[in-house]
């Protein structure tokens, strides 16, 4: 029996008076890959950023409803604790340009002022970089700056940075839309590895990607969660006509 790790209950998000996410109810099972797809401006990224309380960083942004993480409402928790438990990877690779590759991986500890013994840091760095299949490529240049890597490597470095904090959930906001096809497939392969230890929620506007990598898919349209099902069912037998229109390419 699958256990639910994240549960959204009547979640609503606003930018000022603009209602962008409307009454979303969604159960996300542990150790699964969930794809969130939908046309531009449908609220999928806003929903994702609501899960780790990044949404409210934007001036004028507000949210209502509940997001339960292990039956604890993240809306009641301090955002700092939420973000330590729910890691995030962004659309564009954003390693810290002033830090080395090594320091980028342990940035979550280093910049938060958490002191670790050297051996422990070394272990975390090697472990995290191995997880994202980057260790072999960078193990001889750990002291170089993060911006020295290629775009795909930078994105994997950012995933390693999130993984290093040992979160329970990883959020990906269109993680491959700024990457070339080869880097994209490397990152997609990673998802299969990562779901053994984490729960992954991936926002994408690439349907093929959703079909390739996810166990379940959610379809957002105009701020509503239209359909949420096992990926295979969703793509072979969509229940809602809007979903059907979307996956058959009638609108994008």
């Amino acid at each position: 029996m699958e256990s639910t790790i994240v549960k959204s209950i009547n979640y609503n998000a606003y930018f000022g008076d603009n209602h962008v996410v409307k009454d979303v109810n969604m159960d996300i099972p542990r150790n699964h890959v969930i794809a969130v797809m939908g046309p531009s401006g449908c609220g999928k990224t806003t929903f994702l950023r609501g899960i780790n309380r990044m949404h409210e960083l934007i001036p004028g942004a507000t949210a209502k409803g509940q997001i339960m993480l292990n039956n604890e409402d993240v809306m009641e928790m301090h955002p700092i604790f939420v973000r330590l438990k729910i890691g995030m990877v962004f659309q564009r690779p954003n390693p810290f340009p002033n830090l080395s590759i090594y320091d980028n991986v342990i940035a979550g500890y280093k910049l938060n002022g958490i002191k670790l013994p050297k051996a422990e840091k070394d272990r975390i760095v090697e472990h995290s970089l191995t997880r994202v299949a980057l260790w072999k490529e960078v193990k001889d240049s750990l002291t170089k700056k993060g911006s020295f890597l290629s775009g795909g490597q930078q994105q994997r470095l950012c995933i390693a940075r999130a993984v290093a904090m040992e979160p329970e959930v990883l959020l990906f906001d269109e993680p491959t839309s700024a990457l070339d096809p080869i880097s994209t497939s490397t990152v997609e392969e990673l998802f299969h590895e990562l779901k053994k230890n984490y729960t992954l929620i991936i926002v994408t506007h690439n349907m093929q990607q959703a079909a390739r990598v996810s166990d379940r898919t959610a379809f957002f349209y105009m701020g509503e969660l239209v359909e949420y099902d096992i990926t295979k069912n969703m793509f072979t037998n969509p229940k809602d006509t809007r979903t059907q229109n979307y996956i058959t390419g009638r609108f994008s």
Partner: protein
Amino acid sequence: MANHVKYRIGKSRVFQGLTILLAFACVVPLIFILIYILQAGLTKINWQFLTNLPKPVGEKGGGIANALIGSIMIILCASVIAIPFGILCGIYLSENKKSRLAYWSRLCVDILQGVPSIVIGIVAYFWLVKPLGGFSAISGSVALAIMMLPIIIRSTEETLKLLPDSLREAAYALGMPFHRVVLKVIVPCGISGIMSGVMLAVARIAGETAPLLFTAFGNPYMSFNMMKPMQSMPLLIFNYATSPYNDWHDLAWGASCILLIWVLALNIFTKVITRKWKVQL
């Protein structure tokens, strides 16, 4: 048709030529000032000039040691006051672009930038010199610090505004609180721009005379007491250049030359560290 095109090409050439000519024309005054002051001042400068106190009229020799030390102390003190205020204010303005307070303080900073330096001197006179009961170096430092503020604030704000939001988001997503995001990510990434603003502010106030006239006042002797009148380079130049004695004119030329080299060196140093510390985004 062909003639028309030729005419337009000609017009474009003339315009291009004009921009080049005027760009060059801007360099000319500086070159003349440099040559003139170096010619007049360089011969006056020697070790004695830098280490001795000014001599009374009629005696040969004498130097500007008190003004050099005084200037350095006054500027250091002004920097200690202005840098923390300026950088913190700049951080606030860049992190809260749209708040009402940011709007008003930005406006005030812009106006402060336009306040004539003599007015700042008079204000410092009424705020500090009168209540303290006499001219003092510290009141001069405060006046200069007020002049530094707008330069530091604006350069900090502009530098930090250019940093991409993705950087802030990366930091927030790792669970970092606001102060750590600013101190560990934002400021280190913008350090080269912030430092260049600080350096330019120092270079800017190094030659300010007006605010010091009513505050530090000047002193023919060596003084290390910030609560007492103190000599400084621009004051020495002002007092000696307007005196009727040739010996003192020579001292003023030499001091002008030193001040010019100082400001020039600061500017070049700023360029070097800005390049060296620049964080590649």
